[in-house]
Structures are given as structure tokens and as C-alpha cells.
């Protein structure tokens, strides 16, 4: 299954993490779900630094990124990735609690691929997560030369 790349879920709230993981589980995606609990860990993973120095090369199919994160917040992670020549093609979806205009504007300025406000209603939330997983994890075709698992 070398074609199926992992989904990186960056989420600090344990409840949100559980709900999102449950939702992803329910849509029965085959993609591996990698969890980072703050912005710094997400960057370590994406840039293969720190704890993730030894991980096999390869970029995730998509990053589901919360906005408010400890240490390094979502917007900073987004900026680091989108300004990096090798990683700017990694799709990043902002998955956030509210639709604040300034966050929206800033995210799109930085090159976010999608901006999703978590619905309060669970069935809607579930549907949103499922759509995201299916679209970015399976349907979306990355650009040529995109770094696959184990290769570069």
C-alpha cells in the first residue's frame, strides 16, 4: 500500500481528537492517521526533525490542522510548510472551531488548501471529516514528483 499516504492530524484538544479519530475510523479509510498534539510536533514530523528525525521519508496525503495550538500555532505551521520549496505542495486543511474573518483571510494569504469550520451537529461534523478524508486521502491526485513513502 505504498500509494496510500498517511493523514497528519494536528489537534491539541483530547476531546476533539477523540471525536475526529472516531469520525475518521467510521469512514473506514485505509490511510494511516498520524497524530501531532501541537504545532512544534507537526513541524518535526513534516520536516523530519526532533522525535521524527528517524521516520521514513515521504509527505502526508493531507494535514488536518487546528488553528489554536500550543507552542507553534496553526498559522505558523501553515506558513513554514507553504514557504518551503520541497513541502509547499502538501495539502493543508484548516480544521477549526470558528469562522473568524481574520483567520480566514490570513490562511488563504498563506496558501491554505481548504478552511473547514467544525459543525456543532455531530452528523454534520462526521460528514465533514469523512468528505475530507475521502477527498484528500484517496481522490486527490498530487502533483508529479510528489514524494511517496520510502522514496524521495
Amino acid at each position, binding site marked *: 500500500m505504498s500509494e496510500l499516504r498517511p493523514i497528519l492530524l494536528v489537534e491539541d*484538544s483530547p*476531546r*476533539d481528537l477523540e*471525536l475526529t479519530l*472516531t469520525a475518521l475510523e467510521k469512514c473506514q479509510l485505509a490511510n494511516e492517521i498520524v497524530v501531532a498534539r501541537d504545532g512544534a510536533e507537526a513541524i518535526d514530523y513534516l520536516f523530519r526533525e526532533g522525535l521524527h528525525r528517524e521516520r521514513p521519508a515521504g509527505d502526508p496525503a493531507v494535514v488536518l490542522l487546528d*488553528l*489554536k495550538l500550543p507552542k507553534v500555532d496553526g498559522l505558523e505551521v501553515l506558513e513554514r510548510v507553504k514557504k518551503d520549496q520541497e513541502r509547499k505542495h502538501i495539502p493543508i486543511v484548516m480544521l*477549526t*472551531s*470558528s*469562522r*473568524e*474573518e*481574520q483567520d480566514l483571510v490570513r490562511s488563504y494569504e498563506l496558501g491554505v488548501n481548504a478552511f473547514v469550520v*467544525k*459543525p*456543532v*451537529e*455531530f*452528523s454534520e*461534523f462526521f460528514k465533514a471529516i469523512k468528505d475530507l478524508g475521502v477527498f484528500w486521502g484517496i481522490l486527490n491526485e498530487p502533483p508529479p514528483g510528489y514524494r511517496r513513502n520510502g522514496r524521495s
Partner: protein
Amino acid sequence: MDDPQQDLTACEREPIHIPGAIQPHGALAALHPDGLTLVAASANLPAFIGGQTVLGQRPDGVLGEVLGQIEAWHGSDQPFLRVIARDGRHVLTARRSDGLVVVEVEEARAETDSAFAIFAQLNNFVQEIAGQRTMQDALEACARVVRALSGFDRVLVYRFDADWNGRVMAESGNERLPSYLDLRFPAADIPAQARRLYAESRLRVIPDADYRPVPIEPSLNPLTDQPLDLSFAQLRSVSPVHLEYMRNMGTRASMSVSIMVNGALWGLVSCHSAEATHLSPMLRDACDFVVQSLAMRIGAQERAEDAAARERLSVLGTRLLAAMTGASDWVAGIMSDPDALLEQVGATGAAMIAEDRLEVAGDVPDKAAIRAIIAWLETRGVTEVYATDRLPHELPQLDGISRNASGLLVLRISDVASNWLLWFRPEVVETVTWAGNPHKMVREEGRIHPRHSFEAWREQVRGHAIAWSDAERAAAQSLRTAIVGVVLRRAEELAQLSRELQRSNKELEAFSYSVSHDLRAPFRHIVGFAQLLRERESGLESKSQHYLQMISDSALAAGRLVDDLLNFSQLGRASLSKSAVDMNKLVDEVLRSIALSIEGRAIEWRISRLPPTFGDATLIRQVWFNLIDNAVKYTRPCEKAVIVIDGQEDDGVTRYRVQDNGVGFDMTYAAKLFGVFQRLQRAEDFEGTGIGLALVRRILDRHNGSIAAEGEVGKGASFTFALPLPEKKGRALV
């Protein structure tokens, strides 16, 4: 209009200080400062000094006797030297001029020159004017004493106005010459260069207008190659035009003494006789002393009056300043004390223009005229202060302002904005009695002559006001400084307030930001986990199912409440994007969006054609949505709901109405309808967060619009909102 001054330019150009000749009642010698050798002399010098006058040699005779004194004086810094010759019959006066020593020799007149008698008269005069109550009394005393000392037939005290027209203020005479009291003489009678000369040399005398000038030889000063400057010479020969003027006045002898007040030419004491009148240098000095005593008295009086006026004005200025700082708005403050404002500069009307505001006090021209005056001031580039006492002449294109606005005093408060303070004075119709028609000049053979006629000529002066005094201008200037200070301080306070508001706004934004993130998440978690629990425990009995449902519903409602609140707070900051709005289209869209939720309801819609309006379409759609949604909601109990939607345009304002026959409301609580979290219905009867109508009103506020509601319990409710069209933007709606 004829300007007499234009016609007298020939006279203005005449170089009267270098006539090259003297009058024959004395003799003149110009000596070289080194060795006092003779450089130039009047032709009559030998006869006067009784000695030889050879150019290049020291003169002898009575002049030769005093050369030692002249030498000593020349080394000192005294302005002039006056000595009586040893024979007691000659008076010599030496002055420095053009690098030379100019000596004038005259005969003393022993019969009138009793020093004791002269001193007694002077002493009397000084005591008299010190005791005079009014200026007029002092002027009359001066005329009397000068006539007594000099023996002239008529002595006039003559005062210049701002345009150098002269007016006879006091007179003393023996009736041999006609009275000129109260007559005016046009400025052209004494040309500008003559006035300059009068300021430099205080006393002029012409003992006999029919004199034959005595030439000075050589005519050019060998040191400068220029004619000798005789500005200070008492014997200076005068202009032929002036002699003709004297003959026209029927006078053969004249003397005039300048009244110098604070260094400026205030007026003249002008003496005339029908016959030749000779005055010794000593008597002339006595007359000069009298006039200078008068000048000091005038100066002291003017300073005292000026000080009193300034003091009074500064008290008024303080009153105005207090009114300005006390009021929330300085324009209102300054206009709240119109008496002080008018009295500040002695005006009868005032107008204050601050941007588009125009406020007036007292007697002023109509507003269109005031605006025209402002426009004219703008084109003139007036800064700070401007004053005129003849506005109708300055601004002839504007009719009808002379009655109350002949005088205008202007303060420009701000250079950038159009902020003005104007004071007005009424026309003073003055009947001036001229000594002959000043506008009529006489021409003979291409040469201009002064007037032949001195018959009184009356003229009405129109479009003139009493001139603004220095003290009044100074008061205006200091008021301007005060206003600018107040305005600047206000601006500073506003800037401070705006900084504080910005800071608290930032704090509010940060607050709502964290609310939106942190408050929303727990509700989502409750709903999510309740749902997961329900799916997991499929065998849950109905009561537990119900409780789970209540948990979900409550959390959902709270989540919606947070969303609505955020919407409401964001509305205050979001910028509006305004354009023409088709209201029919918006209502259609709203009806389609609620179509699902009203399935199965019997609603009769009565929708009229709506006029278009102007605003932010997204926000106005929200208004329609909330009002229509309310109408649908509150007619739910009705068997047959009737909802009326109509609108009209009226005088630049569009009004729309949503009316229903639902549960209505009690008008007692109408004021509470539009407040946040205000509900007039129980929550279990009608769902909602209590923000809908508050949001509607906020949207309309931001459009400078308004909303009103009418209702009756059980009969229905009617909401009418109004939106201004662009050309009426900014106007308040009720």
C-alpha cells in the same frame, strides 16, 4: 471714481528738500567740517553777517565770531547748536547735513523776545493742559497759546485720519481770516514727501509768501556733487505749488508745527496770517515747545485709553474663553455669550462658520451674503486676521450689505478647514465738510494747481463704518489664539479618547475571538459524545433516549447562541459594501430558503412590488430573513396565517413593512423588542435566541436607517424599516 491723488503725482514727485534756494529772511552758510571753510553760501550771506564770504576760506563777521563754539559743538553729539551773536541782534543755528556744517543766520527780534514773558506763557500753558479734562480742551488751549505767542491771525489744530485726510479739530483766530473749524482737507493737499519732511523736521515757517528766493552758490555740494540737502533748514525755500496754495487761501504768512505722537505724525498746528509775519527763532522754539507738550498729553491720553480698552477686552476674552472651555463644543460655547463676543471688538453682529455650520449673533447680513463674504475672503487668501471699515467698497459686487456690514473684522481660525469668525459694524453715514471739492482738480496750461476754491463742500460718506482700533484688532488676535488653543486641546482629547477606544476595541476583539474558539468547542463535544453514546447503546429505554436528546438539543441551542452572538458582534466591525439592491429579489430568495420549514402550513402571502433601495445586500437579506422568519414563527398558532410585505419610496427614503396576523405583542414592551436577549414569548412556545431583532436594528443603524414595530396581543405584529437613498445619506431617520 476720480482719485485726486492720481492727479497730484506731479506734486508728489517735486524734490522739495533740495530746492537750491532759501527764503530771504535769513542767510545760509555751508562749512567744511575740517577747518570750517566756506563750501557754499546764500547770496545774501555777506549782508547778514556783515563780513567777507570767500569760498574756501573761513567766514568772518558775526559768523566768524562763533566759529570756536561751532567747532566745539561739532565735536559733541548735540543735534544742533543755537547761539546768539555778540551783537545780540543775530541768532545762528548750526546743523550737520550731507557731511557739512550748515549754519543759518537770522535776526533776533528783541521787542518780542522777552524771555521772561515767553517763559510765563509756556508755564501757564503746561499747567493748563495738565488740568484739562478732555482732549478737545487741550487742543483748543494749544491753538490759543500758539496764536498768543506767534501773533498769527489764525491757528488751526489739524488731525490726520488713516488716509491722511486732515480735519480741523480746534481753531483760534482774530477773524481776519475765515474760520476753517471742522473742515476737512483732502490728503492730496499735503503730499507724501511733504509729510515725510514734516516728520523729520518739526517746524516750518514762511514769513512772506511773496518772497524772492535767494540762490545758494555753488548749487552742487562739492563733497557729494548733489544739491545741498535742506531738509532741516528753517530757511528752506518751499515749493511754488505750496506758495500758490497759500495765495489761494488768502494767506501771506504761514507756520506749521508737526504733532508727533509716539514717533508718528498725528497732526499739525497750522498758523496763517493775511500779512507777512516774522518770528524770531526763539519764539518759534517756544511754539514748538507748546506743540510738543500737547503731543505728550495726546500720547499719554491715547496710551491710557488704549490700556483701559485692552484691560476691558481682556476681561471679555477671559469670559469667552470660559464659555468655550465650559461647553462640549467650542462653537456653541462662544455663541452662548453673544454680548461678550460682540463687545470684545465693539461689533454689532457676529457670525461663526465652522465647516458647514453657520451661527450668527446680533445684526448680521443674510446667510447667503455671509457665505459670499467667506468665498471672497478665501480668494483673497486671508490668514489669521483681516479688517476693513469699508466692506461695500472692497466687495462692490455684493449688494445690500452696507447697512449692517460696512465694517468687517475677520479671524481665520484654521488654515486647512474653512473656520471663520466674522464681526460686523453698521454703516455710519457721515457728512463730511470738505474745504472745497477734493475730487475736483484745476488744470491750467497742463500744470496742476491746488484748488482755487476753499468754499465748504459737503459730501456724504457711504459704505463706511467706524474703523477697528488697534486694541480691538489685538483683542481679536488674542481671541484667535485662545480659540486655536481650545480647538487644539479638544483635538488632543479626542485623539486620546480615540486611542482608548481603539485599545478597548482590540480587547473586545480578542475577547470575542477566544469566545468563538473556546466556547463553541465544548458544545460541539457534548453533541458529539451524546450522539456517539446513543449509537452505541441501541437498546436504551425511551426515558434515557429522551435525556440524551435533551442534552444534545441544549448543547446545540447553546452553540447556535454563540454563533448568533458572534454574528452580532462582528456586524459592528465589518465594513459595508453598498450598492443598489433589488428588494423583490431578496424577498424571493428568503422565501425560497424557508420553503422547507413551512411545508404543510397554510400561509397567505400578500407581497407587493417593492421599490429598490441602497445598501449591503447580504445584510439587508438578513433583515428580511429575520423579519419574515419571525412572521412565519409567530403565526404558527393561526389557522390561516396572512403575511403582508409591501414598501414605498418617499422623499429619498425607502420604507418596507412585514405584517402578520400572529400572536402579536403588548405595546408596553415594544421598547424591549430590539434589545439583545430580550424575548416577549416563552422559550417553549417559540424557539430563538433573542438576538434576531437586535441584529436587524444593528444592521439598519449601520445603514443610517431605522425600524419601528406595532402590535397587539392576539392580533398580529407589523414591522416597518426605513433605509435612506444615497443622496440623502447621513440624514437621521425617525
